[in-house]
């Protein structure tokens, strides 16, 4: 027996895992019917199961601590941010000396030192800098993000890793579950997403509250609230007066910018008889800050960590699939089944394959899309992404684009930069969404015969 296994099984014997083993080595009334209790499950959690934690902030610190204490060792943490003074009240893995350092690195260092056996790895970069190969290595991804854009990106990434069998059914081994937590003041939510199987971030996009905005005419002419005055300076006065020159964008993190907005907003407030424009409120409106509450983070992270544990072990059925929590008055939670949208841009979009001669022209693809009984499109708009840049190949609905892409129809697809296995994006009235089509080049017959 390999020494690593010996070590892990002795680790496994420790009293430390006594309670976890009760869940994994015995059956019980709440277990999933297919659950087979076994000591191997703890080995899987400790030695094999790779979990990616996205975000090392309020939720991320909690998640990392929770998962490490549950026995997960192969943890990776990604966060692009550095530590600020205002984080220290709730992001408990950081100390005053850490201000200015990478959140991911500090969090990982702390937990690896504190939890014996934990081998967490830090990535101090934006999630967009890591590629498919990176994300594919994980069994589960859990995220505590404060941005919808980042959630949507991550969701799109996990969708793009899905693989389908020849009969177009989903290959379950390509599914990387996503556990998503979010908090806002005393409110929070946690959810489990099985990409391609259950509702994804994009399916429920309209559940996110819209950014708080005020009608432009109110802030311009009839301000009533201190927020109206600040919004006015942000939306109208900043662009008009261009105080830093060169159309410098307003940066809510730049104290000088905030001070300028604060001063102007105060002037405006005085003019309209409005009180209570403060520096803090200015910061709040500019950055859309809602005070973070440590206990909300702890509760939501605990819930997410439990779901990760259930996914990894199958010891219990997962939450189905969206839990909201409100702790403003007592504690209230409600769990419901968010439904998968059949027309979701992200998860209903299983790539289709079209076979084509390598020397075909774009016109031939266009005709195929219109004539092939599988598609029967009316006026497909075709775009692609080449070397990370979007490229419009042909779009007939917009006159100016049609005129400038018309010549592409006559060109060979290889001359347009398309290659075997490239994805093209096709939008048409006949499909609820833009669909992805993978071009598969047919082998040249002549070459075949010459061999």
């Amino acid at each position, binding site marked *: 027996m390999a020494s690593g296994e010996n070590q892990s099984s002795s680790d496994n014997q420790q009293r430390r895992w006594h309670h976890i083993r009760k869940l994994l080595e015995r059956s019980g009334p709440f277990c999933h019917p297919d659950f087979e209790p076994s000591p191997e499950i703890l080995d899987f959690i400790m030695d094999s199961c790779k979990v990616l934690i996205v975000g090392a902030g309020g939720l991320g610190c909690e998640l990392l601590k929770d998962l490490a204490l549950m026995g997960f060792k192969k943890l990776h943490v990604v966060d692009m941010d550095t530590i600020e003074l205002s984080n220290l009240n709730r992001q408990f893995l950081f100390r005053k000396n850490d201000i200015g350092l990478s959140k991911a690195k500090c969090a990982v260092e702390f937990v690896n030192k504190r939890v014996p056996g934990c081998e967490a790895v830090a990535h101090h970069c934006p999630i967009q800098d890591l590629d*498919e190969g990176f994300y594919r290595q994980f069994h589960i991804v859990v995220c505590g993000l404060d941005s919808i854009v980042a959630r*949507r990106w991550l969701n799109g990434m996990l969708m793009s890793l899905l693989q389908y069998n020849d009969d177009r059914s989903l290959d379950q081994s390509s599914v990387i579950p996503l556990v998503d937590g979010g908090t806002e003041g005393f409110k929070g939510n946690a959810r489990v997403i099985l990409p391609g199987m259950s509702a994804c971030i*994009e399916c429920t996009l*309209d559940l996110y509250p819209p950014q708080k905005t005020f009608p432009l*005419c109110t802030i311009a002419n009839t301000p009533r609230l201190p927020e109206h005055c600040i919004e006015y300076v942000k939306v109208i006065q900043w662009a008009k007066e261009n105080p830093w020159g060169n159309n410098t964008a307003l940066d809510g993190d730049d104290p000088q910018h905030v001070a300028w907005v604060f001063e102007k907003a105060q002037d405006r407030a005085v003019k309209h008889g409005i009180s209570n424009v403060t520096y803090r409120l200015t910061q709040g409106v500019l950055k859309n800050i809602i005070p973070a509450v440590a206990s909300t983070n702890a509760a939501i992270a605990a819930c997410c960590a439990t779901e990760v544990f259930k996914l990894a072990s199958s010891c219990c*059925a997962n939450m189905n699939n969206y839990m909201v929590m409100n702790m403003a008055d007592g504690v209230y939670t409600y769990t419901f089944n968010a439904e998968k949208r059949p027309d979701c841009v*992200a998860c209903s979009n299983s790539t289709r394959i079209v076979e084509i001669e390598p020397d075909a022209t774009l016109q031939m693809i266009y005709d195929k899309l219109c004539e092939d009984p599988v598609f029967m499109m009316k006026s497909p708009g075709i775009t692609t992404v080449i070397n990370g840049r979007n490229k419009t190949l042909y779009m007939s609905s917009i006159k100016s684009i049609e005129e400038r892409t018309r010549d592409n129809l006559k060109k060979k697809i290889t001359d347009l930069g398309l290659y075997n*296995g490239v994805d093209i994006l096709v939008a048409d009235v006949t499909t609820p969404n*833009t669909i992805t089509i993978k071009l598969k080049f047919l082998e040249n017959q002549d070459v075949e015969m010459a061999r």
Partner: protein
Amino acid sequence: MIKLFSLKQQKKDEEGSARAGGSQKKASAAQLRITKDLNELNLPKTCNTEFPDPDDLLNFKLIICPDEGFYRGGRFIFSFKVGPNYPHEPPKVKCETAVYHPNIDLEGNVCLNILREDWKPVLTVNSIVYGLQYLFLEPNPEDPLNKEAADELQSNRRLFEQHVQRANARGYVGSSYFERCLK
């Protein structure tokens, strides 16, 4: 239910191995959605779009030439900037033509409810086009952005109409100068 534990036992470790052909950068959800919006754009005959770069579907201009109402004969250009959070957030729309209008100020800010507080992800570029076109047919003095113009529209429609025509043809209204924007 997905049995991750048993599934992943069979899964080979592919750590860090991006397979060939799998490295094409994926289009974002915002990109997919705007492509769909634009392919289905159904412009009224008074409107037209211009794309400075046909590969960049996120930045374009809309030109409206109203054929009735106060603004008939004018040519008004709007810039659209679609952000990465579309359609959770609306596109940023500015009017690039100086216009004497109750709901458009001289910096080009446009007061249209669906561009801000009433935006919903189900709305499309087409909805905004119709909203903007409507502003020219029925300027709304109740929600003024250019207060002077709004007050005038309410108190003296004839004078307002004259001022709109003067502004469109090039000239001063009050202390504000307007470039010619007639077709």
